[in-house]
């Protein structure tokens, strides 16, 4: 995610101030819509600048730019994609709520996406986000699709929304736990003997 105050010209030097302004104007123009999300705007601009710099480099100097992999950015993109997939599966669960078999099918997809999402928080800085993701995954994997309640879908969605936030901390994780518990979505499984086996994750 682009940090507030990042200076564009640190990474993408343009020759003059006028060139920079002209470039930004073109970007704004090409977006063609009202700017409602500044962060998104800056990401669009960065992406366009990226292409321009590459093209200019190839045409002018005959050089090829080699991408330096950015693991943090890759993890972020992976998280966004998986969260979106989970959200999509959840929407399908709701859409198919009246059809038990359909509900089961999409609930299994949801479990798969959440399981994959748990692995997309590799760093120590992601400790609490990972805990929230694991709690959510455990809460759904210990639940049966046929026992799911509509209100629980909203709660799962709310926790997915929390996962969109960067820099989650302990209070966030505890809040997520409370929200899940209040909805009867338990992330600590049964310790009873002769209990029904937990449903497999996927």
């Amino acid at each position, binding site marked *: 995610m682009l940090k507030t105050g990042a200076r564009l010209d640190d990474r993408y030097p343009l020759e003059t101030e006028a060139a920079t302004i002209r470039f930004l104007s073109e970007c704004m123009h090409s977006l063609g819509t009202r700017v409602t999300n500044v962060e998104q705007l800056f990401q669009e601009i960065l992406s366009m600048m990226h292409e321009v710099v590459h093209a200019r480099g190839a045409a002018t100097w005959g050089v090829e730019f080699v991408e330096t992999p950015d693991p943090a950015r890759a993890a972020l993109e992976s998280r966004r994609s998986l969260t979106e997939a989970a959200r999509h599966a959840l929407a399908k669960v709701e859409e198919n709520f009246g059809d038990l078999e359909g509900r089961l099918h999409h609930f299994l997809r949801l479990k798969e996406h959440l399981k994959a999402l748990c692995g997309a928080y590799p760093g120590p800085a992601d400790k609490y986000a990972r805990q929230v993701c694991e709690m959510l995954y455990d809460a759904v994997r210990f639940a049966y699709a046929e026992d799911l309640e509509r209100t629980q879908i909203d709660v799962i969605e709310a926790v997915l929304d929390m996962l969109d936030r960067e820099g989650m901390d302990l209070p966030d994780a505890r809040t997520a736990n409370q929200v899940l518990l209040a909805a009867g979505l338990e992330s600590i499984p*049964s310790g009873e003997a002769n209990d*029904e086996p937990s449903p497999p*994750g996927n």
Partner: protein
Amino acid sequence: MTSRPHQATEEGPSAQVFLDTTVQADRVTAALPTRGAIAKALENCRLLTSTYVMGEFKQTFLHDAVLFHKLLTDSRTTAEALNRLERYKERPAKRMVRVFARIMEEGPEDKPSMDKPSMLSRLVRMVEWQLVDNFLFNIDRVLDGTGCARARVQPVRCNGTYNFPVRCRKADPPRCGVADYIAAHKRQLLAVAEHLVTDDADLQRLLRSVGSVLEGGSPRGNTCKSISDLLIALEVPKDAVLATTNTRHFAPLAQVLGGPHLTNPVPENHERPSKEDS
């Protein structure tokens, strides 16, 4: 004699219900439908518990989570750590063993169990905050009559695992208020010593410990443990009922003490673990 807790109505205030260790353990680790049924039975009630109950909970459930974290840190696989767990307990809390086993069952039987880093991450969550948070979930008040030292102990991260000295031994007792608490309730202890007649082995042990305390013996360590049900019964406020699944111990005590009233919020078809099991 137990009854269902009286729930709040529009006309009257909500009932106060004191949750003992058996009910608290069920709220955190029972089968999921049982947890739902308990939550429903206690809905709209004002929920109380105590530091003494929390001390018992920590000494069992949180202690086991810390122990399993240590074993897992020292094992190659989650399955290896689980196999080692029971050998490390004086009285294995089978419930926690089963909780860990179920967390590890990540896929169908033919798939390997959860990998070690994923399991460790879950244990860190449980050890550092989740078990205690779940214990305190929806609790309105935690009473602290005994000043139980076990409730105050927190796991402290140390060399990749946790230091958690939750044990209470007579030889080296932690600072707590149990002696003062017992002194303040001497009349009730005398009543129990004089009037409790029982064939139950646990209650007979309780009676011996009460006698020892009344003769001036230390109430710490195992003595404290053996009179735990009495201490909990004495903690319940007069206008509260005691929620427990352990009527075998609490009903005779309540009869001698003239209260508290008991309630069992756990569904009747719920299989009760033995004392050693929980």
